[in-house]
């Protein structure tokens, strides 16, 4: 063998790159992908998307959405979540949801969504999403995954926080029409699930947890606020006597997680937590504007563009009357108000992670603290 030997792989690659250069020259200013996406949106090599295969109602306000992901879907570990972008009334909205199962033989993935009051996306997914709809995805992420070396586990879940835990449990104990399957890898596990919900019928996946409980795979300790009162973290040891010997995984709202973190730290217990629900910003009137390293007070009546420029920031700008869109920059955090009609635009952690929500700075004023990019 010599250094000059061209391997078939390289040849293949150079041919491919030459072909794709020709294809690009033939479609400029668009890309070949812009045409291919119209007919094969789930193919390899394009933006990650998925098609809704089916929507299964879980309770009256929760549903499991089964998705066929694009060819580039890299798979996931139970307990991870993904970001999903869906058009709600024509507007692309991004949210994060846990994957509610382990890797499936059919290659599909699913998320379980609980419709929260005023939740634009969750209500759409639960009540209006139709099979066949194309959605946008990002690869699964999240560190809330099981450590295989631990065998004695406690899951504390609250509300829709049960979803990543269901993902782990379904991977450990697959449920088929014939009942729960006992896998050798799950035999040595000893699992307690403390599931907290406001009331019994609202507890999504309850049937699933009960089935696992009656099969002996897990011990279910349901806690309903209306029957048992609100869970007191300090009384957890009463519910789970061997708490000290278990590794705790908790998923739910911030208040519960904070209380558990404090409790476990005090007792020196191991705890993994997950909070993925997007925080919402209350729109106020005026606030601190941050642009790169500049921070300045902005009142609720002055366009961000004027405020930023007065503070010495070099901003893109145009007509200064909302017409030309020459001043559009991403809103990374916070909320702004359209001075023409009072409409509020809000950033959330997910849109921020995706580059922010584009806003016109010449007709938007601060509606609370906000951060923009240049």
């Amino acid at each position, binding site marked *: 063998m010599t250094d000059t030997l061209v391997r078939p792989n390289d040849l293949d690659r150079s041919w491919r790159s030459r072909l794709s250069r*020709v294809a690009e*020259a*033939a*479609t*400029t*200013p*668009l890309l070949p992908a*812009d*045409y291919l996406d*119209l007919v094969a949106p789930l193919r390899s090599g394009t933006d990650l998307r998925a098609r809704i295969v089916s929507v299964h109602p879980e309770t009256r306000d929760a549903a499991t959405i089964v998705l066929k992901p694009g060819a580039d879907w890299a798979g996931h570990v139970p307990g991870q979540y993904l970001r999903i972008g869906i*058009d709600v*009334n*024509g*507007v*692309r*909205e991004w949210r994060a949801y846990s994957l509610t199962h382990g890797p499936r033989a059919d290659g599909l993935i699913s998320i379980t969504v609980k419709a929260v009051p005023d939740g634009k996306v969750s209500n759409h997914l639960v009540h209006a999403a139709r099979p066949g709809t194309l959605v946008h995805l990002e690869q699964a992420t999240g560190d809330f995954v099981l450590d295989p070396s631990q065998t004695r586990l406690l899951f504390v879940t609250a509300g829709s926080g049960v979803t990543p835990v269901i993902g782990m449990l379904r991977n450990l104990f697959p449920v088929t029409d014939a009942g729960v399957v006992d896998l050798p890898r799950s035999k040595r596990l000893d699992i307690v699930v403390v599931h907290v919900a406001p009331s019994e019928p609202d507890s999504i996946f309850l049937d699933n947890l009960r089935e696992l409980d009656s099969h002996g795979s897990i011990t279910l300790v349901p806690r309903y606020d209306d029957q048992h009162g609100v869970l007191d973290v300090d009384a957890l040891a009463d519910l789970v006597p061997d708490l000290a010997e278990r590794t705790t995984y908790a998923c739910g709202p911030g208040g519960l997680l904070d209380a558990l973190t404090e409790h476990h730290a005090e007792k020196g217990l191991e705890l993994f937590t997950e909070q993925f629900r997007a925080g919402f910003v209350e729109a106020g009137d005026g606030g601190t504007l941050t642009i790169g390293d500049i921070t300045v007070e902005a009142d609720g009546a002055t366009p961000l563009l004027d405020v930023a420029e007065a503070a010495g920031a070099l901003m893109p700008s*145009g*007509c200064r*009357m*909302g*017409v*030309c*869109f*020459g001043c*559009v920059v991403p809103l990374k955090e916070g909320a702004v108000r359209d001075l*023409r*009609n009072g*409409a509020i635009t809000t950033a959330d952690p997910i*849109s921020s992670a995706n*580059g922010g*929500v*584009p806003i*016109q700075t010449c007709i938007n004023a601060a509606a609370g603290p906000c951060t923009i990019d240049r």
Partner: protein
Amino acid sequence: MTTIQKKPVDPTAHLTAEDIENLGKELDAIRQEVLDTRGERDARYIRRVIKAQRGLEAGSRALLLFSIFPPAWIAGTTGLSIAKILDNMEVGHNIMHGQWDWMRDPKIHSTTWEWDNATPSDMWKHSHNELHHTYTNVVGKDNDLGYGIMRVDEDQRWQPFFLAQPLWNFINACFFEYGIAAYDLELGKNLAIPKEKRSEEFKTGVKRTLGKIRKQATKDYLVHPALSIPTGSFLPTLAANVTANVVRNLWTHSVIMCGHFPEGVETFEKKSIDGETRGEWYLRQMLGSANISGGRALHMMTGNLSFQIEHHLFPDLPSNRYAEVAPQVQALFEKYGLAYHTGPLPKQVYSAWHKIVRLSLPNGWLAETTPVNAPKQLAKLYKMTTGGPKVRRAIEARDRQEARRRAEADAA
């Protein structure tokens, strides 16, 4: 056309400041109504148009691989011409206006869109969205008025150079995409500056425009003809691409001329927009634009610029909504006693061309010329063309004097 500030009767004289403020509020309400109902239906519309445009372009180009066969050439060239027009008008122009930014789809967004045209999208957005839409029809501020090379207003002093402007206009129409690119670069102004003093911005602009032109030309005049070689169709495909580009150029030029050039459309003095209120800005847009009447296909092919008045009032509303708000807008014109200019395409194109021809000649020349006095008028034109500025001024002064006398005689 004379700026409304110099007209004997200002068409807005009957409106009080309060009227104009109320007019602004009523237009704001129309705009708000569209914003409140903007949603899935609109999103579906633009996605369908984009899909149809891409399908048509891909299909036409596939046909042109066999363009040696006349039916394939005709169908392919027709399809490609329509696809290019849709790309530039209903899709490109409107997306770059930010009409679809509200969908938050990064692929259909004013900040990311690029179009099948010589000028790079961000340069076009500056000259079109910022300058033209803000300073619509303000003489000396809105370069769309005559593109800096034509006489489009009586107040511009006539020179023999303008005799050729119908020809310039036709040549500009044939090569319109390059005309726009030159115009976005402010080529005339910048070339007048000595080479070493030209701004960095201009130099990078030239580089980027040439880069884009090279890519577009490579696609149309090299790659696709070359792909047609297996069927022996190199030259027919090349001809098809040239034809489609020229058809697109002629069409877009015609539509754009109809927007602000037909007779009756008003122009404005530079100082008239100092401290202009929102209501006054709306009023200027209403008087400075003209519509084209016709069916749905025409509106689609003009990118809904057939609703130029509505587009200038609400440049960032989705284009599919202009037809819906047009009756409300027209009712406001009536309510406030203003003229809503609209007409079928041939009429508006004729009207715009008539103005170009009329103003290529000295003020009043075309109107005063009859078969009887034609020899005398031609002699006068010859004298003005060959005689130098002093002769021209003397003749113009005498014409004005005669006109005044005639007016006094009529009055008596």
